[in-house]
């Protein structure tokens, strides 16, 4: 599936909820599906700066695509990163670099996109794109 198609799928899922509480409950559920980072990669340099909670992201190349794993000590953050990883994992570096992140807005998480918000969603997206850029330069 393309990033665009996955994003549309996520937007569809979130459109079923009519209040913030259901949305947050779903984010918490998604947090439980997060492909967890191996303990050995939970290093200082894999921590994403700018988050109030700790977030680790690791990226690996597999057959020309990038596979992300991650973890966080906060469950809402885990859910948000799970949504991002679902959209961006197993994609080529080029596709990741080209993709936009408007779907975050559409699923009602716009407030988390504010750069002043301490949860660091913006930093997470930036980090994912940085990995893509790095793998792209390597290949």
């Amino acid at each position, binding site marked *: 599936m393309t990033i665009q198609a996955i994003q549309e799928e996520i937007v569809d899922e979130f459109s079923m909820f009519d209040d*913030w*509480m259901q949305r*947050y*409950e779903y984010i*918490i559920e998604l947090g439980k599906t997060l492909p967890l980072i191996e303990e050995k990669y939970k290093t200082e340099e894999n921590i994403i700066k700018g988050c*109030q909670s700790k977030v680790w992201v690791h990226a690996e190349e597999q057959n020309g695509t990038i596979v992300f794993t991650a973890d966080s000590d*906060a*469950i*809402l953050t885990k859910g948000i990163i799970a949504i991002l990883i679902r959209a961006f994992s197993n994609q080529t570096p080029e596709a990741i670099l080209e993709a936009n992140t408007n779907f975050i807005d559409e699923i009602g998480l716009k407030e988390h996109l504010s750069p002043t918000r301490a*949860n660091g969603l913006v930093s997470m997206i930036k980090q994912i794109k940085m990995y893509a850029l790095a793998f792209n330069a390597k290949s």
Partner: protein
Amino acid sequence: MFDVQKVRADFPILKQEVNGKPLVYFDNGATSQTPQQVIDTIVDYYSRYNANIHRGVHTLSQLATDAYEIARNKIQHHFNAKHSYEIILTSGTTESINLVANGFASILQKGDEIIVSALEHHSNIVPWQMLCEHTGAVLKVIPMSVEGELLMEAYDDLLSNKTKLVFCNHISNALGTINPIEYIIQKAHEVGAAVLIDGAQACPHLKPDVQALDVDFYVASAHKMCGPTGVGMLYGKEEWLRKLPPYKGGGEMIATVSFEKTTYADLPHKFEAGTPNICGGIAFGAAVDYMNHIGFDAIAKQEQELLEYGTQKLHEIEGVTIYGPSDLTRKASVISFNIEGIHPYDIGTIIDKLGIAVRTGHHCAQPIMDFFKIPGTIRASFAFYNTKEEIDIFVEAVKKAKLMLS
């Protein structure tokens, strides 16, 4: 007679809804809200007599100068300073601390010691670390107990004739601990050290008497005591303020001229280079008036009741740990807590959706969080305009968040 509903009517911001719910503002430790009386003072200044001070002969400039100096007098009386020129108006607590730290750079020598407490805010650690790097002085730390109280026996052992400066907050921002500053000041003076007390968190709750305390420096911010942001004060004993070099504007001069005081403008202007926050200073005076009008006895009583009620209600939730002294007479109206197995950030995010403003995170006091081995806490800090009903709403919201998150 203190009537909380009447008092709340003074604060327009408290009447609004956030995320469709009535606002419950429990982040007073970060900044307090502003009463109409202070807002009116700000509007009046810009509507009627906005002008630069201490230089114009025209009427507006004189009005503004008078109002600014009257505000300084109000602050002087509030803190019971001996002279109005012992009150330096700054941009806030952080600048006040930096002003003193900067001044001590010319006083300290290699091997001198500065003592700080383990309960400090980052803004109270960094200036001293910088000062130590610059002068070769050594930073010592007063440790704390598991209840977040400073260990005075350890403090006694740290003191020596090498100690030149002791720095401690009056009340801890992260835990609410009221520190034994009378003892700290007295013991420091016995070895000839100066003491700087950070009153940022204390001044919303009590009225310090700098002469009775015999403190050398005391600092505070207006925005935590119903005033505007961007203004605060440094109280310094006259002898100290005369000894310290200017902080701003004189940097280049300091290298070429002697330190004779005649070189600089007299106190307090020596430390107030440039156009100050004139409106802020005047509004700071109005905030002091407002708080005294409410009365610090009434404030203390209301806040103590909220603290006791909030503590009791939170303890009813399973898995809650509250940090800081368990003896509530030894802490301010701040409840810093966690719920077992749940990140403070998650709780903060959910209850924000329910209209509740609290602080989550390390509260700029990472060493304290490291001590308790936690990533941060949820901090509810109450002001005199908060109510028990708000605490009920807050506790229900925390319960709801806990249910969602576990």
